[in-house]
């Protein structure tokens, strides 16, 4: 007991004695460990942690994969779901759900909530009981049954003011008298951010595939079945459907994944992998730095070690004695790191709702749980071992006789110097990779930020409107509503234009299989195009440039020739080198679907995220008069700040029908900004990683080179004494740093290029501007390393040769 306490006390004393060294190393470890813990907590929260239900680890969602793009949020045809349910052997439970707007009205006021239409078994799937009342039974899901709903805790608290008699009350839900039968517990928002639930009544057997709604499938996978086996089975079922129903299922398969990964979308695994790699690099850099500093200190204490060896210290004790310092440093750094991570997570929790284009999923709990703290402790122990073991091992194997004999602390110079050189090379390579990744992300996202969506998205305020089916059953009523709304919006003072579209530029569209007239289709492999419904005048209000033909106007009536306006990207793709006016196309999921005649061509418009997979997709627009919809996005074009028009927008909508609230009201620019919010957040994170990497690398390299130059002071004195000029000595010292720099860059640049390709492919920049990053970053690192070499060299030269010769 006394023996290790003796060493612990000594290590503690040494750290107290050198507050500069201690605070530097503790800060470095706090930064490295803090970032690492933060990232682990973040990734764990959004992807890795099982859903907070009894079978959370085996809960999955099944969605469609169309033309290589993974869809989410309800993309499987109800018929496909029924096929999967009938044929699959991989699941304990399967159920379908889809999101729906829930306009709730208690007679006093209407409010829009996020509704989930689901099969009754969703609640048993999540093993959650209501706190009041009951959930759905099979009778509730029969067509014609009394409409019922289960509401969430927040709706109960906020909209119904904690009404204890809520169960059994009747409210108007989407215009239909609906009975509230239960209240779910606080925090229950399954499948993502649900606020109230409705029983699903669609009967797949009575609908055709063309009429089939899209659903998501919740699935409890059997523990005996692997995810790969389940995927294989799923793809087999979908392949048969694709073969049998190419009109609805062309290029369509399905995939199974966790709810967490599904929410993250395309490319998320690659991004998460990159983030974990980046943070691991930062942690390695921190360990290398602290290890380097400990090694330098161990070199300085070579004589002390030699004395201990002479007194008969066993090697294990020598190693442990030096390890204690790294244990102290890493433990202190780890504790600070944990605090930093907890604080950053709290900040993140507060800022996330403003950063995401959708509601924050219920499982995103940005906290450090017991498992994470346990993992953090393991990381701290590992880092303490990694940082301490190399210096301790090197020193325990030193030639202590030489140290005792000539008493110079530089006796370990050659061997320790080699380790130092390797560590510097490692630091250069790692920082090069991190800085380059950050730089590439910055450049490509800058390009994405400046993306031309093909419309004037500035000074627009948009809001979603969903007309209840019960009160707006008639197409004419819907048309009139939106006509009146657009007219009223245009009368708001300061508004220069208004319109409505099913999906505004920057917002995703449904991607439909279609047949262009005269375009050869082989094996029923139909192409797909996005479809958006536009209210008359809306394209002009959005400054969507007309290239050919005309915009929608009063000629486009419900009973007139079905028409469409297409983007020039669609025109060029299917009717190249000719005018596409008068050309026709039809959607193929319905045999009775009409042919649409192209009456206009507008410039290419991006609907959805401006990344490689989406941004080149073509779009066809159809007039609202011929493609009546209950859900539209209304917008106004204003002078000044669109945010100031929120109240006026809501008032205009309420004047037309107080039972129809607006929802998801947002400045269009902000919504588009949020489109790349996730990627921007990742860029910022990488920026922090890169900054840490640069600071760590520069301080580490400076420390190592300053130390090695200092140990060569006598040698420098001798060289100058025999006539070496200052310039010669300087170039000799600089060369030492540059050799390590070049080796580090030779390793780092190709790895950085390879690592960046995932991001480049995901974002799909139009230019190769990001190449310059691979020149700029090495230049920055060269500057840093040169400075880190120059200043210690200059200091060594400033010493008189006579003093240098006496230097110990």
């Amino acid at each position, binding site marked *: 007991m006394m023996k290790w306490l003796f060493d612990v006390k*000594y290590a503690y004393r040494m750290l107290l*004695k050198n507050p500069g060294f201690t605070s530097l190393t503790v800060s470095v470890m706090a930064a490295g460990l803090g970032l690492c813990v933060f990232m682990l907590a973040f990734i764990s929260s959004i992807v890795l942690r099982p859903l907070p239900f009894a079978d959370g680890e085996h809960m999955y969602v099944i969605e469609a994969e169309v033309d290589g793009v993974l869809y989410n949020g309800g993309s499987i045809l109800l018929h496909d779901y029924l096929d999967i349910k009938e044929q699959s052997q991989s699941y304990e439970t399967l159920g379908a759900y889809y999101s729906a707007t829930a306009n709730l009205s208690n007679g006093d006021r209407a409010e829009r909530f996020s509704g989930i239409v689901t099969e009754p078994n969703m609640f048993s799937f999540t093993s959650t009981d209501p706190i009041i009342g009951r959930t759905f039974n099979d009778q509730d899901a029969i067509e014609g049954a009394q409409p019922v709903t289960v509401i969430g805790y927040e709706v109960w608290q906020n909209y119904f003011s904690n009404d204890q008699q809520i169960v059994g009350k009747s409210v108007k839900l989407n215009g239909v008298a609906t009975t509230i039968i239960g209240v779910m517990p606080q925090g229950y928002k399954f499948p993502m951010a649900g606020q109230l639930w409705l029983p699903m009544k669609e009967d797949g057997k009575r609908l055709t595939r063309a009429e089939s709604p899209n659903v998501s499938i919740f699935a409890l996978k059997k523990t005996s079945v692997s995810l790969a086996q389940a995927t294989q089975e799923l793809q087999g079922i979908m392949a048969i459907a694709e073969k049998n129903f190419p009109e609805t299922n062309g290029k369509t398969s399905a995939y199974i994944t966790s709810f967490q990964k599904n929410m993250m979308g395309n490319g998320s695994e690659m991004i998460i992998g990159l983030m974990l790699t980046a943070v691991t690099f930062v942690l390695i850099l921190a360990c290398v730095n602290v290890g380097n500093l400990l090694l330098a200190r161990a070199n300085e204490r070579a004589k002390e070690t030699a*004395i*201990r060896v*002479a*007194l*008969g210290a066993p*090697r294990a004790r020598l190693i442990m004695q030096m390890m204690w310092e790294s244990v102290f440093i890493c433990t202190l750094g780890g504790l600070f790191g944990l605090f930093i991570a907890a604080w950053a997570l709290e900040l993140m929790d507060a800022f996330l709702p403003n950063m995401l284009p959708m509601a924050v999923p219920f499982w995103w709990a940005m906290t450090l749980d017991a498992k994470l703290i346990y993992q953090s402790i393991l990381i701290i122990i590992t880092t303490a071992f990694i940082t301490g073991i190399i210096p301790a091992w090197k020193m325990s194997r030193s030639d202590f006789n030489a140290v*005792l004999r000539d008493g110079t602390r530089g006796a370990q110079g050659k061997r320790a110097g080699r380790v130092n050189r390797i560590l510097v090379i490692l630091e250069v390579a790692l920082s090069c990779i991190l800085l380059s990744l950050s730089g590439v992300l910055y450049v490509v996202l800058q390009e994405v930020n400046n993306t031309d969506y093909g419309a004037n998205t500035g000074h627009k305020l948009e809001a979603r409107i969903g007309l209840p089916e019960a009160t707006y059953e008639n197409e004419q009523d819907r048309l009139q509503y939106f006509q009146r709304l657009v007219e009223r919006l245009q009368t708001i003072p300061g508004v220069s234009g208004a319109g409505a579209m099913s999906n505004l530029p920057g917002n995703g569209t449904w991607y439909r299989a279609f047949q262009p007239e005269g375009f050869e289709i082989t094996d029923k492999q139909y192409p797909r195009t996005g479809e958006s419904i536009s209210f008359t005048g809306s394209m002009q209000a959005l400054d969507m440039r007309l290239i050919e033909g005309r915009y929608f106007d009063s000629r486009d009536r419900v009973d007139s020739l079905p028409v469409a306006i297409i983007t020039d990207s669609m025109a060029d793709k299917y009717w190249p080198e000719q005018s596409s006016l008068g050309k026709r196309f039809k959607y193929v999921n319905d045999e009775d679907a009409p042919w649409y005649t192209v009456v206009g061509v507008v410039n290419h418009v991006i609907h959805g995220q401006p990344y490689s997979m989406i941004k080149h997709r073509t779009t066809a627009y159809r007039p609202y008069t011929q493609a009546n919809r209950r859900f539209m996005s209304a917008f106004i074009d204003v002078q000044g700040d669109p945010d100031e028009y929120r109240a006026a927008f809501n008032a205009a909508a309420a004047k037309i029908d107080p039972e129809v609230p607006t929802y998801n009201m947002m400045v269009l620019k902000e919504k588009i900004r949020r489109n790349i919010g996730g990627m921007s957040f990742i860029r910022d994170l990488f920026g922090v990683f890169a900054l840490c990497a640069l600071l760590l690398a520069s301080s580490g390299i400076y420390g190592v080179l300053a130390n090695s130059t200092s140990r060569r002071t006598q040698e420098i004195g001798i060289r100058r004494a025999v006539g070496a000029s200052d310039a010669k000595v300087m170039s000799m010292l600089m060369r030492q740093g540059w050799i390590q720099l070049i080796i580090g860059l030779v390793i780092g640049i190709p790895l950085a290029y390879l690592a960046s390709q995932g991001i480049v492919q995901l974002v799909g920049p139009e230019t190769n501007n990001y190449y310059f990053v691979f020149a700029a970053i090495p230049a920055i690192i060269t500057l840093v390393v040169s400075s880190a070499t120059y200043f210690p060299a200059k200091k060594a030269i400033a010493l008189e040769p006579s003093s240098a010769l006496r230097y110990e």
Partner: protein
Amino acid sequence: MNDNALITLSNIEKVFHTDEVETHALADIQLTINAGEYLAISGPSGCGKSTLLSVLGLLDTPTNGDYVLNKQQVANLKASERAHIRNKEVGFIFQSFNLISDLTVEENVALPLTYRDDYSSKEVVEAVKKALAKVDMLHRASHFPSQLSGGQQQRVAVARAIAGNPSIILADEPTGNLDSKNAEAVMSLLDSLHSEGATICMVTHDPRSAQRSERLVEILDGKIIADNPIKRGMHAA
């Protein structure tokens, strides 16, 4: 074999290889040190006396030859075994004191004992007190080396060397960094230890220090060229 022999070196050779240069630091060393003997090793710089002391103290291994310490063959032991024997059997006194600056006087003296398994915490404390009392440094037990004079530091080093009751004390130029007054004090201390039965082997340049021992071994070019008892008359001079 001499029954009283504490150390027996037979045909000891030590060769250093540096790049392509081979240096014979010790050659054909035959030396016996009896228990309770006070031996001085002398010779010019670079003659190999410090190397011999390193071999004697198990800090280094001979290239060839036999080394018997306390009736145990120790020439070819592993580093860990040598460390164990060194800790138990050998007490070192260095020219430059070699105290650890960040340990207090009592911690420095206790240090070798903390590497041993046969000392309890209480025994360590007692042994340290006893050793410090013997060198008259008990009153400075909680001081750090930097707070002591050179002579005092060397007395602490002596206390560290004797705290574990080693079989032999190896002193490498123990007065080399001291003024004459402190040198005399340290030499008196060694005399006193010897009179109490300690075996001492001292490397020294200083003829006056050498004359205080019982036996003088002279080395030149790595070989023992003389091994004679010290005459009383020379001691007085």
